[in-house]
């Protein structure tokens, strides 16, 4: 992935330096404005960290090991702009001091790994993790995908840079002057290695680090998850494990709703005006009221007010369903679903209000 000197033509190198320049300038301005005086030590230390992580031998499936670039980690924890700077600094020290990656190809290496890698990693992580809580397993999956896709996007850029060389730069005899393989060879050759070993190394280190931070130092994941409060995690979204027994109980109650069909008659006091007119329901009312006979006519207030509102599912039996028992169960499910939906909506509105007021106070 670190392109050495001699593989790319000087004009390609110049174009990629020019392509990287605006990103460096924007990153420098954004990060300096954000961190102010903390900028120098933070970027230095994170660059040093990226450099050292690149030396870790990451165990891969099959017993082999690979090296990660760390673009996933830096982008996930610091955001894309600080990551661009930190990885660019690490790459410069690698190129100049350790001779890993060329000096003329430094712009190309930064464009591929620091810029494309960081931006892809950050975009994928944000897209997949969404607004999930910081301890959500989805964030681990998002980090894995971010690392894997970022290094493959970088490899694809490098492959394209290699692949255009023989067509653009060759001697009069047709022999290539720089990287000798066309796009049809360079792209599969680069991607096979990165879709397998290098990609897996980046995947393992990105996902592993996020999983570790979730259990050991979750606040470090907050920088790239604006609006997700660490302290309110359990209150806001307890997840399956915390509310497991609540959901199990609710499901059991819904399954048990047909038991209501076994109960005879209507509940005491839940009569409507028609019940006072029918002889069989009058008997039920009297039996439920210690054999006291109900009045001859329905109470005037009940008759007047009872007609104001008619329910969509009267007596838990929707009109469109012929089977009364099935309608009863369907009504139970519909009602429970409606209550859950209203609760979730209320919670969402409440969180929205809180995050807006927090933003204002900031």
């Amino acid at each position, binding site marked *: 992935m670190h392109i050495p000197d001699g593989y790319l033509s000087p004009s390609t190198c110049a174009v990629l330096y020019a392509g990287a320049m605006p990103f460096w300038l924007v990153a420098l301005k954004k990060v300096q404005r954000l961190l102010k005086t903390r900028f120098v030590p933070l970027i230095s230390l*994170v660059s040093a960290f990226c450099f050292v992580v690149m030396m870790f031998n990451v165990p891969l499936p099959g017993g082999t090991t690979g090296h990660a670039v760390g673009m996933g980690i830096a982008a996930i924890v610091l955001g894309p702009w600080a990551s661009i700077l930190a990885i660019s600094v*690490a790459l410069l020290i690698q*190129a100049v001091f350790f001779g890993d990656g060329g000096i003329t190809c430094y712009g190309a290496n930064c464009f591929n790994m620091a810029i494309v890698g960081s931006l892809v990693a950050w975009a994928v992580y944000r897209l997949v993790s969404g607004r999930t809580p910081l301890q959500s397993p989805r964030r681990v999956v998002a980090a894995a995908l971010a690392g894997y896709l970022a290094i493959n996007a970088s490899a694809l850029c490098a492959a394209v840079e290699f692949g255009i060389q023989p067509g653009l730069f060759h001697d009069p005899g047709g022999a290539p002057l720089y990287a000798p393989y066309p796009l049809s060879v360079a792209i599969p050759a680069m991607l096979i290695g990165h879709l397998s070993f290098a990609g897996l190394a980046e995947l393992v280190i990105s996902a592993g680090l996020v999983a570790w931070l979730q259990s050991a130092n979750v606040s470090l994941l907050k920088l790239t998850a604006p609006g997700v409060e660490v302290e309110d995690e359990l209150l806001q979204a307890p997840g399956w494990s915390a509310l497991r027994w609540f959901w199990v109980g609710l499901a059991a109650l819904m399954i048990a709703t047909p038991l209501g069909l076994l109960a005879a008659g209507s509940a005491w006091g839940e009569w409507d005006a028609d019940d006072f007119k029918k002889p069989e329901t009058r008997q039920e009312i009297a039996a439920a009221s210690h054999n006291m006979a109900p009045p001859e006519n329905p109470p005037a207030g009940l008759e007047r007010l009872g007609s104001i509102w008619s329910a969509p599912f009267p007596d838990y039996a929707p009109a469109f369903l012929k089977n009364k028992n099935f309608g009863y169960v369907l009504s139970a499910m519909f009602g429970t679903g409606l209550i859950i939906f209203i609760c979730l909506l209320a919670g969402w509105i409440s969180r929205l209000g809180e995050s807006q007021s927090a933003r204002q106070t900031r």
Partner: protein
Amino acid sequence: MKRRPKNFIERTVGSLADALEYAALAETHAGNGGLLQSLDPRVKLIGLLGLILTAVSVGRVVVSVFILAVAVALALFSRIPLRLLATRVWIGVLLFTGIIAFPAIFMTPGEPLARVPVLHWTASWQGAHAAFRLVTRAETAATLAILLVLTTPWTHVLKAMRVFRVPVVMVVILGMTHRYIFLLLHTAGDFFEARRCRLVGELDARARRKMIAASAGVLFGRSLQLSEDVFAAMQSRGFRGEVYTMDDFLMKPRDWGALAAFVALALAAFRAGTQ
């Protein structure tokens, strides 16, 4: 006795130790009295970068070989052992670039050079030429690049970068990063060494991955903590966001002469190599 293959902990410890050893080596050679060591760092930076640019620009292999010969001569006059260049640069570049360049001998169409008997592959002159050119150019550029670091203390290389209008803040970040790389290399080396000492038997794949992720996590936490400590130390010494460097280089007549020689050599090689 059959040697046990190194596990991932031993390999990581090896990589970290190798980086530390290289840095110590560079520091030692930068202090030796030799031709390049005696020159102004700015002259070395401009001169060696000019030669690297020429080496990657020229199409004629003879010119690339000539620049490589100049680099070897500069190394000898600067008391850099050729054995060090061979082990640190030439073998590594030959293996890496050679593997990449070798198939081009057979894949590049052109005048037939030889035929592989069993596989029926045909090597072409153009392919061999392209492969040799790529390897020579990569070797030359890498040799010139390592000469800069082996003959100049890192702090001087950074200060010399100001010639190219690199912002002062970037120069300071590069200096600080370089310094803390070695601290973090030691810290990470200690993690793995401590774990290796306590490890009986082999870890399974899941445990290995968990360990590497935890090591990266702890190192990251320490890096951030360290950045806070460094910031506090900088503030206590009066740091308010402005960065200054001491620019005490002084060009002597021999530096001007060396600069003129580098420029003349690069221009002549460029002219000869692109004709």
